[in-house]
């Protein structure tokens, strides 16, 4: 539901921007041929709405494309113009296929293709260069103003809503990994499903993972804190993937049972902390302050010391000991990261 409202807001903002751009195109542009809505649409595709640098980059790219194509078209005879446009489109698509894999960037290429295709209209092929530039800049201004005024981006809210599904997925994945380690029946299938969920929520294209925090132009005051948080969240993902590969190993169950209590307690505690983070991000009131949780994982430390008591030469011989040590290290890393997240959330 929360994501949906964010989606509705973005869709509504873009729709209103196009609506205004069409009116501006008819009454304020020089050519009245649809450049204003096209450029406004292109600007509205940005993940962060108010990002002047990216907006300028895109507007300048279209200006350059218009200039370049217009100059070429003015040299070509009308007969060759269609062939040229088709070749240009083919080239753009192959460049897209070769260099770009993000789905949504395809929309940018479609837009550039549309710009090129508009030039097919015979009366516009090679004239009105400056008028066209004027309209493009107008479209850029409409795009910027619309993104600032109509349903503007709310980085704080969007960030929180983008991170919550990731933490949910992590929590489920952690439990599934623990089940796999202790050979619970059907754990293999479950952990695979949970892993796919984690992989999907970590992708910008398939979810609302707030990767825009890394982009240039995002509010510098907010960026540092958000970046710190997001980096920790991504590191947690790294640790979980590492734990999954350890859990795949067939560790001797008798040996594992010696450490079972400590490991399970740590997993439960981490799960509790993740649930608390979600509650805090959902702005719920929580009875217990975050800093009281997981002050020490005593049993895990004890388990760790049990493993460490074995001399390193023995570790050389026993793969199972190394696997358990690796799993404990992973849990400790996860714990360290959750403590850092808790500090950031205070």
């Amino acid at each position, binding site marked *: 539901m929360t994501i949906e409202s964010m*989606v*509705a807001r*973005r*869709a*509504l903002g*873009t*729709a209103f921007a*196009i*609506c*205004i751009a*069409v*009116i501006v195109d008819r009454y304020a542009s020089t050519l009245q*041929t*649809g450049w204003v*809505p*096209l450029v406004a*649409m292109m600007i509205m595709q940005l993940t962060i709405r108010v990002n002047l640098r990216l907006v300028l980059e895109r507007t300048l790219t279209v200006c350059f494309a218009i200039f370049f194509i217009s100059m070429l078209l003015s040299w070509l005879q009308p007969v060759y113009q*269609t062939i040229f446009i*088709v070749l240009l489109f*083919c080239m753009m*698509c*192959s460049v897209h*296929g*070769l*260099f770009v*894999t*993000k*789905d*949504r960037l395809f*929309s940018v290429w*479609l837009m550039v*293709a*549309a710009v090129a*295709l*508009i030039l097919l*209209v015979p009366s516009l092929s090679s004239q009105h260069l400056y008028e066209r530039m004027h309209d493009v800049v107008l479209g850029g201004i409409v795009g910027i103003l619309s993104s600032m005024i109509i349903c503007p981006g709310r980085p704080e809210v969007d960030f929180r809503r983008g991170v919550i599904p990731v933490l949910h997925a992590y929590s489920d994945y952690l439990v599934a990994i623990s089940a796999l380690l202790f050979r619970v029946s059907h754990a293999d299938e479950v952990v695979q499903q949970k892993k796919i969920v984690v992989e999907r929520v*970590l*992708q910008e*294209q*398939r979810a609302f993972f707030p*990767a825009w925090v*890394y982009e240039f132009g995002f509010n510098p005051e907010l960026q540092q804190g958000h970046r710190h948080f997001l*980096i920790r969240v*991504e*590191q947690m*993902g*790294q*640790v979980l*993937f*590492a734990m*999954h*590969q*350890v859990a795949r190993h067939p560790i001797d169950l008798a040996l594992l049972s010696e450490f079972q209590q400590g490991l399970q307690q740590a997993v439960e505690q981490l799960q509790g902390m993740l649930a608390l983070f979600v509650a805090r991000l959902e702005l719920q009131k929580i009875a217990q302050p975050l800093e009281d949780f997981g002050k020490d994982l005593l049993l895990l430390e004890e388990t760790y010391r049990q493993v460490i008591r074995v001399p*390193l030469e023995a*570790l050389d011989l026993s793969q199972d000991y*190394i696997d358990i*040590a*690796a799993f404990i*290290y992973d849990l400790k*890393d996860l714990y360290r990261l959750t403590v850092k997240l808790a500090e950031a959330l205070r």
Partner: protein
Amino acid sequence: MQFIHQLEFGLRKAMRHRADWHRLLYLVIVATIAVYAASYLQIAEGYWVLIAALFGFGLSTHFIFYRAFLVFIGIGVISALGVLIASLLAKHVFLLALFLLLTTWLTIYAGLLYASVWGLGFAANVSIMLAASVPVSMMDAIQRFWCVLLGFLIAFIIRFVFIRDRSQAVMRMKLAYSLYRLAQLGRVIFSAYITHNYADEHFSHEKNLHLKRCRYLYEIDQARQLLTTFTGKRREQFSELINLIECSYEMLQSISLLIYRVDDHSTFAVADKELITISSSMVKEFDLLAEQLQQRRVVAAQRSTILNENIYEMEEIHCSVLQVVASEPLVFMIFIQDMYGLDKIMTQLFGAILRLVSR
């Protein structure tokens, strides 16, 4: 520097990847037939055939006939109707603005909720916007309607009649891309160990990791979706490959944790040379695996043992120096075990690819 890597990656792909060239060929055929059809019709709005055919080309990502048919028909009819209405409303600015408000909201909303319909909705919306930009008479608007349908039809027919089903080639391509992405991810992970001013470059390292990880996840996700279109032995073979690639990814993630576990970065300087050689041989091995898969031919009959030897050298350094120097030698031992684990998975991958390409 990153751009040069991207360029190098792209050019390498351009030289090797047949599936890209097939797609480009498909595009050229679609465009040529659409241009010919537009000129044959000899009508003012004939260029809409080309516009629709090119958008139709963009939609042709489905490999199952009935699904692709539904997509083409659905988007074709919606676009044609949208173009017709937008053309008729083009003279009435406020009505047109309202219509575009509705269509844009619908397409963007659906596209944001369901990533798979993003491109489809976008194509329909851009067609409608193009139609709205040049007002025409009623007759011309109807001509546009039929031209759009014809354009989509051309793209669909060529996709399924002249171009044979290339789902296997696409699957191999996706898996090879995943391996190339793993090679890039591995390079970034090891760059953190090798670089001397890691503290200064911490953020750019994390950002690079994020980008490479996302690209890998995108490719493997695509491969996983494509797997549902296969049956029988082929499905088993591809499924095995996906599992092994995922195991390699998990192993790389485990390998990447060393940087957070070692407090004193200067410790890595002890094994600088070994880390560099491990990194380069690992990247080469991933590239070679991808190449074998992509080209469907056996480039090397046996897997090289260089990576294994390099890991062994690192292990020797661990036993002689790192156990003394490092504050927590156990983390290096875990790292070495992970490297051996990766080497083992790579051997399994090599075997699986060999079985697939030498059928």
